[in-house]
């Protein structure tokens, strides 16, 4: 089977490629790209004129909810949603029920992800750092790594004890595993449901102070510097955290970080009407934070953009603000939100956009992907993006079971139209059928 993607703008940050040309996928592998390629014996041809041909998007941080949260999402629906969002590899967090703290669960998850009905994307599991994610005893990390985890994290239940975190980091250095950290001091954040600030004071909602994040970021950066552990800080939300990460990098700590779109688009003011679709963890901060985050995205301090895809059932979201769960779905909005708010605003070039969404997260988590180089990945991971397509996000049409998003009804510019993980796994309705031609 030979597939030709023709006349697209080929963007590959791993090789600093940005030119108009074609790419050939044969027997599920990228075999060639260039301004001109061998077009003989092509089975499928996709005219990509005006589109970007990029490495498949890689999500360093999502939630597939299975096992235990199947009413919110399953591996099947989650991976279908990921494919529709242009992702070819997604890293799922361990806060399932039970948590991903033993190899049998990793086996189960990988089996489900590889099933024919799943979305066809690669699922890279992140194992629990401590047993039950209780922050006390280390999980069987060596066994988990053998089972297939790509990193370790206690996700939304961050380790509070600095000694336990140190030992966890040391063990992960030995196992050559990155540690993913949601940085939050649990005591400072306790019972908080939005940013602590003028808005929370007015609304009478318990706030999460920025220091809850900052203290944990600083502690974890220092521990990373001390242990040499590769630390990836998830969903940075404060300007002060950004500044600390910048300093930690300057000092030589092996620290990377991500941001999620809601933290560079929305602010605490969006909570004014108590709409729980804006209840995030960490909470939406202030315009100052947003401005500094945008600068940090542009200057590279923030390495990558994640979805933090967090599906919840509608009855859970349509609850009093204090009772509603944190987070929102993201697979099918993160690319569009990034293109709309960063790329088309001149904050990121197309090549840097692809780096933040594909090449950088693949490198941080040492995953196959993030490159169009022939032979670089066992199977082709390619996404075709229309950067100019203007559309309105309608959560009712998404593949995810979760319909909780603050982006519903929002106009976007840019969308993934085709996703290849080996062969084609997703084709958007906006992809002009007329462009598809069988070459006899």
């Amino acid at each position, binding site marked *: 089977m030979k597939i030709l993607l023709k006349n697209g703008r080929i963007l590959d940050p791993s090789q600093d490629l940005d030119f108009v040309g074609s790419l050939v996928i044969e027997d599920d592998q990228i075999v060639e790209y260039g301004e001109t390629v061998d077009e003989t014996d092509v089975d499928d041809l996709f005219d990509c004129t005006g589109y970007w041909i990029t490495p498949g998007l890689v999500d360093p941080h999502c939630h597939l909810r299975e096992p235990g949260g199947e009413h919110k999402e399953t591996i099947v629906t989650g991976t279908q949603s990921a494919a529709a969002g242009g992702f070819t590899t997604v890293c799922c967090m361990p806060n399932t029920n039970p948590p991903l703290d033993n190899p049998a669960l990793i086996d189960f998850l990988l089996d489900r992800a590889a099933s024919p009905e799943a979305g066809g994307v690669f699922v890279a599991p992140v194992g629990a750092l401590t047993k039950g994610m209780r922050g006390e005893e280390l999980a069987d990390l060596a066994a988990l790594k053998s089972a297939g985890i790509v990193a370790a994290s206690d996700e939304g239940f961050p380790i509070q004890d600095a000694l336990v975190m140190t030992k966890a980091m040391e063990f992960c250095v030995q196992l050559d595993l990155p540690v993913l950290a949601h940085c939050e001091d649990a005591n400072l954040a306790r019972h908080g449901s939005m940013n602590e600030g003028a808005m929370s004071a007015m609304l009478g909602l318990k706030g999460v102070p920025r220091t809850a994040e900052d203290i944990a970021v600083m502690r974890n950066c220092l521990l990373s510097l001390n242990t040499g552990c590769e630390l990836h800080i998830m969903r940075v939300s404060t300007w002060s955290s950004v500044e600390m990460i910048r300093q930690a990098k300057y000092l030589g700590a092996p620290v990377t970080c991500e941001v999620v779109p809601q933290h560079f688009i929305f602010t605490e003011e969006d909570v004014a009407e108590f709409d729980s679709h804006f209840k995030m963890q960490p909470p939406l901060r202030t315009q100052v934070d947003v401005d500094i985050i945008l600068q940090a995205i542009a200057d590279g301090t923030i390495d990558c953009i994640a979805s933090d895809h967090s599906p919840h059932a509608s*009855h859970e979201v349509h609850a009093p603000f204090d009772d509603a769960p944190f987070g929102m779905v993201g697979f099918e909005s993160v690319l569009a939100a990034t293109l709309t708010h960063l790329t088309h605003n001149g904050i990121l070039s197309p090549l840097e956009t692809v780096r933040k969404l594909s090449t950088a997260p693949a490198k941080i988590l040492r995953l196959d992907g993030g490159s169009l180089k022939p032979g670089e990945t066992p199977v082709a991971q390619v996404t075709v993006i229309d950067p100019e397509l203007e559309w309105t996000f309608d959560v009712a049409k998404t593949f995810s079971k979760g319909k909780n998003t603050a982006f519903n009804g929002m106009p976007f510019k840019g969308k993934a139209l085709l996703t290849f993980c080996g062969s084609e796994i997703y084709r958007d309705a906006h992809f002009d059928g007329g462009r598809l031609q069988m070459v006899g």
Partner: protein
Amino acid sequence: MGRNLLAIRHLEKSDIETLLERGAEFKRAVVAGKKLPQLGQYVVGMLFFEGSTRTRVSFEQAAHYLGLKTANFGAAGSSMGKGETFKDTILTLRYERLNALVIRHRSSGTPILAARYFGAPVLNAGDGQHEHPTQALGDALTILERKGSLKGLTVAIVGDVEHSRVARSNAWLLHKMGASVRFVGPRTLMPSHTSMLPGSVYYDLENGVADADVIICLRLQRERMSEGLVSSSGEYAKLYQINRDTLRFAKDDCLVMHPGPLNRGVEVDDTAADFDRSAITDQIGNGIFVRMAALHWVFTEEPPKPKAPAKPKARPKRRPAPKTKANV
């Protein structure tokens, strides 16, 4: 259709004036034994998801005077206690043809959520730490009776401002009506950011109540001690109690108020609670009349004109793009 009464913050000054005038009219009519408007065709659901005696009784009494029928729901016996979601509970009451809901809930913003689903008047009877609009209306009516006007008054709200819905509603109402509001209390019980609240902050009681026309004491919850926010009720009383000594700093005719229930000897001493300038019992009585006004208002007033359809939330232009070498 009718209107909602969700928060003082959302009300226009003219709405507040209407409610206060109507409350005063109802009081005169009740005291004089005059005939009151009867809204007997309506049934009001009383949803108290949080324990309350005085507010519930006050609303029921107000409904009774207006000939309204009431249906009572409590947290323990409600379907939510059996696992039903908040949304489904509200929708059920809507289709059971209740005509209005009075809601108290421990979570801020819950009446606003209920109003989205209910489609008929919703009245906030206290939501979390957010607002308690009818308490503020009753307090305002009490001040008006004693002082004649709200405009130009200096009102000190003393105590646990951080956790007080009464403080927020009172501050918004008094500010909108031209009074000067001071929040007085320890830093541990004061919001750390007060720029969006309509009042100035004092941590010292003497300065906070200096030349005040009105002092509104806030109830100190005992749990604040266990949370480590106050060392002891004794120390709190020493620093923030309104009593004969501390009243000397306020104006001679300063009114003392308290939403109740009182912790005598903590927020106020007997002298302050019972002396002739205490308006605490008036507040209770006036609470009924403003709740009558509120119930009458939501059924008889036209809802505000719908705003223009909300624009989509794309707002890339409100911030300048950082300088970068990147270009699309």
